[in-house]
């Protein structure tokens, strides 16, 4: 892959959502596609109950972490976290985000305010050349499990063409790398994402 096909992806979500599992699925699928892959994640105390961030670099990048302004693609598994991660996106980068919210404790307790989705979208659009919000939890639940909502986001990015990974390869990644009992719901999530984007 030539240098101009190098791609840096930033993943962000909330502990327990399966952000790292999704990162790993996409990374292994990318390796299966013959791409050069480096991924980075943070484990341990940094993760417990908090924001989970990971990165995936394709095509020969070596750094296992990203700085602000470096991501070509931002995959946000929760809208507030998408907003928080916007500084990582390069000007003109692409964003796919879940639109279903998981309010943090301070919001649940009425101490702080969760920004409304429209203001999140307009903030993201200031930096992104394209941004797409999908109801991942809703589509995932429809597909058979909340967690398969993460596949909705991966599928949307693959369908868009920004990733050098086709939907067919993602489907192959799902059946190769996920436990068998998760195949049906994740393949269904992939179809639902495709249908949602065409609608």
């Amino acid at each position, binding site marked *: 892959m030539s240098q101009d096909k190098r791609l840096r992806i930033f993943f962000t979500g909330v502990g327990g959502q399966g952000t790292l599992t999704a990162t790993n699925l996409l990374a292994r699928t990318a390796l299966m596609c013959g791409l050069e892959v*480096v991924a980075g994640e943070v484990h341990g*105390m940094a993760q*417990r109950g908090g924001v989970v961030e990971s990165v995936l670099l394709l095509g020969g990048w070596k750094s296992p972490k990203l700085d602000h302004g470096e991501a070509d693609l931002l995959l946000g598994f929760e809208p507030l976290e998408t907003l928080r991660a916007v500084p990582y996106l390069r000007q003109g980068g692409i964003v796919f985000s879940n639109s279903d919210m998981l309010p943090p404790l301070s919001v649940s307790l009425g101490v702080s305010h969760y920004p409304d989705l429209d203001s999140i979208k307009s903030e993201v659009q200031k930096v992104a050349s394209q941004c797409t919000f999908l109801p991942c939890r809703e589509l995932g639940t429809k597909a058979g499990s909340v967690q398969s909502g993460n596949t909705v986001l991966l599928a949307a990015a693959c369908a868009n063409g920004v990733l050098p990974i086709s939907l067919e390869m993602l489907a192959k990644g799902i059946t190769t790398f996920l436990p068998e009992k998760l195949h049906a719901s994740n393949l269904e999530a992939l179809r639902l994402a495709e249908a949602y984007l065409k609608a």
Partner: protein
Amino acid sequence: MGKHPLLNETRGEKQLLLGNEAIVRGALEAGVNIITCYPGTPSSEVVDTFRRIGGEGRYKMEYSINEKVAMEVACGAALAGAMSLVTMKHVGLNVAADPLFTTAYTGLPGGLVVLSADDPGCHSSQNEQDNRGYARMAHLPCFEPASAEEARAMTRAAFTLARDLQQPVLLRTTTRISHMRGAVTFHSLPKPSEAVPFEREPMRFVPLPAVARKRHAAVNNIMLRAQEIADQSPFNVETSHTETKLGIIASGVARDYLADALISGGWTDKVDLLELGMTWPLPEKKLSSFLSRHSRILVLEEGDNLLERDVRALCQRIGCAVSIEGKDEILTDMGEYSRSLIMQRLAKWFSCPCPLNPTPTPRTDLPGRPPNLCPGCSHRSVYYAARQVFGDDAIYSSDIGCYTLGVVPPMRMADFLFCMGSSISGGSGFSEVSEKTVVSFIGDSTFFHSGMTGLANAVFNKHKLLLVILDNGTTAMTGHQPNPGMLQESLGEGCTHLDIEQIVRAFGVDQCKKVSSYNVRGLIKALTEFKDMPGIRVLIAQEPCVLYARRTLGKRQPNVAEVVEQNEDTRRCLKELACPAFYKKGEDVAVDQNLCSGCMVCLQVAPKSFKAVKREGGRA
């Protein structure tokens, strides 16, 4: 269950591995015989992976009770001829330093590799010490991988070197390397190593002063041999593109950021590189040649300026007048390096504008997600009870584990902390000179790690201390590794359960009570009784970690809490217990059934406000 992919014998197979998994593969390829550890982020996945893959009888492994013990067990095995690996996080090596410094004198015929996983940036640690310093101080050859593939290859090479030289070898990673994923190409998987037969040699292995003095000379000679090996090492690579007089010397993760920075800046052909993977002893011949062929040198290393200092000293020694730069106000000894920091540093060194676009300032007004004790965490109720009894009158001496999060309001149950086990001994010292009651909190794994010695000391020296042992039956924070306090049925046949209460009583503590962590009234009663007593008082608050109970023990409470009355007590419970399962619905308090663990502590805090109801279908 089939063979784990890490045990695949096919040479040339390519897999995407975590840096720590690549270390496991490298150790298997070297023929490792025994692995010991104390878990600690970012090192834990190494030994957890050895445990998960089973190994088909290839190796023995253990979770030791602390790093010193892990080191001694591994040293003993290496002395008996086994190829041995001991793993720990950076601060663990402080605990294990004593045996390490002396076995580096005596040598270990079987071969010992010490994994130190450092944590620049303090992602989950109390300091960012740079353990490359130990290599210099203890006479240890050192490898620093910068990719998953190098983690495999260098681990394998570290074992070969450790056995050839009979010298302990340091394998030093950082968080980003341990927790990065990359493609790893497998080499063949031989049978485990043959043991090197032990030959009695007390004048080498018993370091009486006369022996130690001789061994100091011996280790110096071994390190001279190691230096020759470093000069030949395929991990110390020079890349010279042009006739440039600019040279960069880089090690560790800085090499990754440098590679990306050079491409991003279009600077690849502007500089020559000397990349170091075997970083101690320094490859002095290679370095001298590199230094003398350039007029300006930039040293890039995350952490302390060790390499920079040594390169400066080497220049002085060989009479080389090259200009050397390294740490400055851009690249400091604090935190992590990054591609953009290195780009800024290079631009300054090249005296050219930095081709980085300005980036938006992160918003600081967004609601955060700080780490918190889980809903149903058995520590929360203990902290609630302690705050009811002592309020701000006591001094709270905390320790290392999930329960350090008790520092977060409204609990505010941590006033100070040094290191593993310090809650007891540090608390003892504080109470010796303070009028205030000192309440120490320690977890079960940390108690076994180094709390027991502090307790023995407290009894022996007649300290006054109220100790609460937060016994959740597992090593929760690092991923539920076994410890001696774990139930026998969970430990299985390979380990023996040790009873904390029996240990405490055997130390001579008369005032010892055991209460369920979910029994709020019982906790308050015990603490109130202990409050004005003299001497050592120990409360063992026991209840399994809620995540461990659910995931591993398969226990899930059938009921959840529901708010039945909105009153002053309901609001007080929200404010003072602050369970993450609570949320506000307008002015009312409600319980999120998906988050509620069913611990029913809120029912005890505000009996009229809550009641137990059957859990609806809910999520798995």
